[in-house]
């Protein structure tokens, strides 16, 4: 499409939120805008936010679904605190999201749905588009639905079908405003609706009409330009956490030469891992949708026993159900990857919202002394490497591993530099093939005779002659592995299982501290998906002229071996988490450090601005100074963050 004669203004970053009814196609709209943005070369981070109900009552606040995308000409870490632009498809979407906007933000509303009935459903007494309540914002009222219906009338669709293309009209308008490439979306629509030409053509027409409307109407005077970001060399793609995690599991299978077996039960927000892996049978992947969570992990343990890479994927409630079976994998010392895509809890909690409150469940949620290694990715793309790492630990050490993702990582996306296969670790399953105890006619296979370096036991799979053996949940005698009730043996085996997990620290990297000035008195340490917000908060504090150090944990059990030393190097340690202080508890317990928590459990990622204030406050205390963050304490888009 041709360039515009309108004024073009440069921006370094923009945060857009698309919001509408859960049937309005906001996730698709956001996803398409993201793909266009990725193709354009901006750095980006996304935050989908949708209700647990598939179709909540239309037009109501609980039914609002939104998709936020933050994109920039530089490297960014979060989906942004406050949107610069809100696209609201109905009164409920406006009302539900208005509170997140900063003054001066742009609001584009579809006036079509601002009927008396919908206003009432959203809880408005008066039409907010008519009074002065939105005067602080740059409000654009557009009859998106009406124009969409007009634009697609040649295709003879019903009014309902015609108006459903309004999300593409909105996408076209926003694509024009921010100079996004349109080819990815038109080819996407052609493919998606290939079997229904009328719908395909209507969506393409609506998309183009939205673009042309932006270009021709006087209502939008400015087009914005956000230059591509400078990123390290490599091949990039935009990827969500669940997709990256599924790819990581396939990579773990290829790198170990073990066929992947996923035993699982559908659960939000983990189901997409099952959906994705079920497409990759050509890699030898078997996916088993079990009758329940327990059968999912049970089948994965069975497959591991039979020599496959057993994986089970779930969320917190599923981990609760699988706990006993994970304990069995601890006792039988079989490789197993347990993926927990955390969501708000307890109980059913907030199925579609994010939280990181399963850390202690992962750490301790089993009967007896049942240590399980824990690995946590820090961003959507990082889910790939974290999954490979979980597979490496599981296979090398013959142990279940908990891989703690969360809802934000699972559904959020970012540009990901695709690694080459050479960069991935080679994982050696080292199956046992020979008897390992005694010699000659007396030779036997002892299933609990351990490797001296790793303390891993031999993994002899059925079909291996001469190594027939029995394992199970009862305590095993050291070495021979027969049932043992001997008190000293039990004490020894409990300590040995713990020692084996502790030994993993020998093969994980030391924790690195980002402390550019070397003068920081405060260390901010986190784990999992808080990496982005913490990093953004730290940048703000540094921009304001203060010193702060940052470190982030990928391995939660065992911790990197230098962690205690690192913590002791700082006067104060801040631990931001989307829970009530679970990592804080572990750090305090293990290292006797006075960790200060910053904790929110709102079902949403932490915000960079609030973290900047929390960090600033602690820096002030540590250095005995007053902290003034100035503009760096405001959620504004004007500055280079």
């Amino acid at each position, binding site marked *: 499409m041709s360039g515009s004669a309108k004024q073009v203004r440069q921006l370094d970053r923009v945060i857009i939120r698309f919001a509408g009814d859960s049937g309005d196609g906001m996730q698709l709209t956001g996803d398409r805008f993201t*793909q266009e943005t*990725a*193709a354009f070369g901006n750095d980006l981070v996304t935050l989908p936010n949708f209700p647990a109900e598939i179709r909540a009552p239309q037009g109501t606040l609980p039914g609002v679904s939104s998709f936020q995308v933050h994109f920039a000409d530089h490297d960014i870490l979060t989906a942004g605190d406050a949107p610069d632009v809100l696209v609201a498809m109905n009164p409920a979407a406006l009302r539900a999201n208005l509170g997140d906007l900063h003054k001066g933000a742009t609001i584009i509303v579809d006036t079509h749905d601002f009927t008396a009935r919908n206003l009432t459903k959203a809880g408005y007494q008066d039409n907010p588009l008519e009074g002065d309540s939105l005067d602080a914002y740059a409000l654009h009222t557009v009859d998106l639905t009406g124009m969409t219906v007009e634009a697609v009338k040649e295709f003879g669709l019903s009014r309902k079908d015609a108006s459903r293309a309004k999300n593409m009209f909105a996408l076209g308008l926003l694509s024009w405003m921010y100079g996004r490439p349109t080819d*990815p979306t038109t080819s996407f629509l052609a493919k998606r609706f290939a079997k229904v030409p009328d719908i395909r053509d209507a969506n393409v027409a609506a998309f183009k009409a939205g673009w042309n409307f932006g270009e021709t109407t006087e209502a939008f005077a400015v087009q914005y330009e956000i230059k591509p970001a400078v*990123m*390290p*060399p490599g*091949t*990039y*793609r*935009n*990827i969500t956490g669940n997709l990256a995690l599924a*790819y990581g599991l*396939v*990579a773990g299978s*290829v790198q170990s*030469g073990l*066929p992947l*077996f996923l*035993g699982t039960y559908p659960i939000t927000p983990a189901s997409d891992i099952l959906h994705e892996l079920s497409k990759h*049978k*050509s*890699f*030898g*992947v*078997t996916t*088993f949708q079990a*009758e*329940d969570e*327990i*059968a999912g992990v*049970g*089948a*994965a*343990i*069975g*497959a591991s*026993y*039979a*020599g*496959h890479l057993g994986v089970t994927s779930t969320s917190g409630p599923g981990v609760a159900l699988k706990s*006993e079976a994970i304990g*069995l994998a601890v006792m*039988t010392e079989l490789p197993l990857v347990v993926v927990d895509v955390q969501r708000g809890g307890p109980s059913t909690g907030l199925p579609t919202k994010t939280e990181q409150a399963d850390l202690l469940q992962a750490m301790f949620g089993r009967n007896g002394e049942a240590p399980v290694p824990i690995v946590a990715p820090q961003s959507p793309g990082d889910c790939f490497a974290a999954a490979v790492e979980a597979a490496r630990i599981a296979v090398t050490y013959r142990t279940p591993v908990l891989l703690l993702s969360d809802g934000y990582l699972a559904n959020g996306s970012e540009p990901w530099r*695709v*690694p080459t*296969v050479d960069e991935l670790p080679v994982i050696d399953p080292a199956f046992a093939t020979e008897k390992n105890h005694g010699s000659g006619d007396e030779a036997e296979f002892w299933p609990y005779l351990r490797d001296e370096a790793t303390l891993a036991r031999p993994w002899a799979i*059925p*079909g*291996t002659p001469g*190594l*027939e*053996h*029995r*394992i*199970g*949940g*009862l305590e095993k005698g050291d070495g021979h592995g*027969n*049932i043992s009730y001997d008190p000293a043996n039990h004490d020894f085996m409990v300590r040995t299982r713990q020692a084996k997990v502790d030994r993993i620290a020998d093969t994980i990297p030391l924790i690195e501290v980002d402390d550019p000035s070397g003068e920081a008195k405060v260390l901010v340490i986190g784990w999992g998906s808080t990496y982005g917000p913490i990093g953004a908060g730290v940048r703000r504090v540094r921009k304001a002229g203060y010193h702060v150090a940052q470190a982030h944990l990928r391995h939660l059990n065992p911790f990197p071996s230098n962690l205690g030393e690192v913590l002791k190097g700082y006067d104060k340690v801040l631990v931001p988490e989307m829970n009530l202080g679970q990592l804080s508890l572990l750090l305090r317990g293990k290292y006797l450090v006075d960790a200060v928590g910053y904790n929110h459990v709102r079902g949403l990622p932490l915000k960079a601005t609030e973290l900047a204030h929390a960090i600033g406050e602690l820096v002030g205390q540590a250095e005995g100074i007053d902290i003034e963050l100035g503009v760096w304490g405001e959620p504004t888009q004007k500055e280079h963050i």
Partner: protein
Amino acid sequence: MSTSPLTELGLPAMRSGTELVPAADGPQTGKEFTSDQEVRWCPGCGDYAVLKAVQSFLPDLGLRRENIVFVSGIGCSSRFPYYLDTYGMHSIHGRAPSIATGIATAREDLSVWVVTGDGDALSIGGNHLIHALRRNVNMTILLFNNRIYGLTKGQYSPTSETGKVTKSTPMGSLDHPFNPVSLALGAEATFVARTIDSDRKHLTTVLAAAAAHRGTSLVEIYQNCPIFNDGAFDAIKNPDTKADAIIPLVHGEPVTFGVDGAKCLVRDETTGGVKVAMRADVADDDVLVHDAHSPDPTMAFAISRLTDSGYLNTSPIGIFRQVERATYDDQAREQVATSRSTVSDNDTADQSARLAALIGGGDTWTIL
């Protein structure tokens, strides 16, 4: 294996349950299948008889020992795998069918057995049992039914008769019991049989048929617990009463029982089920002929209902149902094989190249 309806129709026979399991190099003995572990059941426990029968039966299967896997749950009978020198896993309560499903699906070259009890299979693990049966995973489930909880010292089980006085039910149990055979037929199991711990010959015959069946075979084994439920099966074991108590089922044979075959089964026009009649009162053609291969489980279910739900005075014994249906694991492997056949090679280099193509797929851009 008895004649299949497919071969009768001139169609190829269903694959045997152990067809893909490597055969032993030569004759084997029961001793080879006996582990060095001391057997620790109570004296007189029915489990000993079943263990002996299995140990002496396994050599007849003619399979390589290392390709046999026994998986159990929790309970007295679930100690079984420790006493067999095969591969084995003594797992957690009720979950053996799910673990066995993973093993059987992962590996076509293994003969997979589940050993479970009435509490393990029908109470805590009921869900896994019915789903294994409906999926028809290639494995044989030996359900030791002693109608009591033994390992936890004598509480009533899901197969105990109503009104049973136990430690946990001093005024009598209130629950209506499961009939394991009816339950399995309701779950559309493809092989359902019942046998008795003390009848080595019948037990062995049923085991052979179960192992030969491709799919999930459920074998209910009446097993006496001499400590907590002694005599539960006296009626069918006592030489004086067993002729009247056991209704023997043999495919293709008229169902007659009782002293001198005085009783038989006939269709019950009133209920649509079956009932017991005196042979002398029934015309030859009206005696029910057992058809274990009927695709419709209705008649097998009707026969299963002749089992007493209270004290066991009568019970049908034998193979209730044996039909052919594609197994879950064969089909799962076939889907994988079909997908793999669409790609060039499956060597390491090829896998790496395809992995690179997978993760580097989608809309990508390159920064130099």
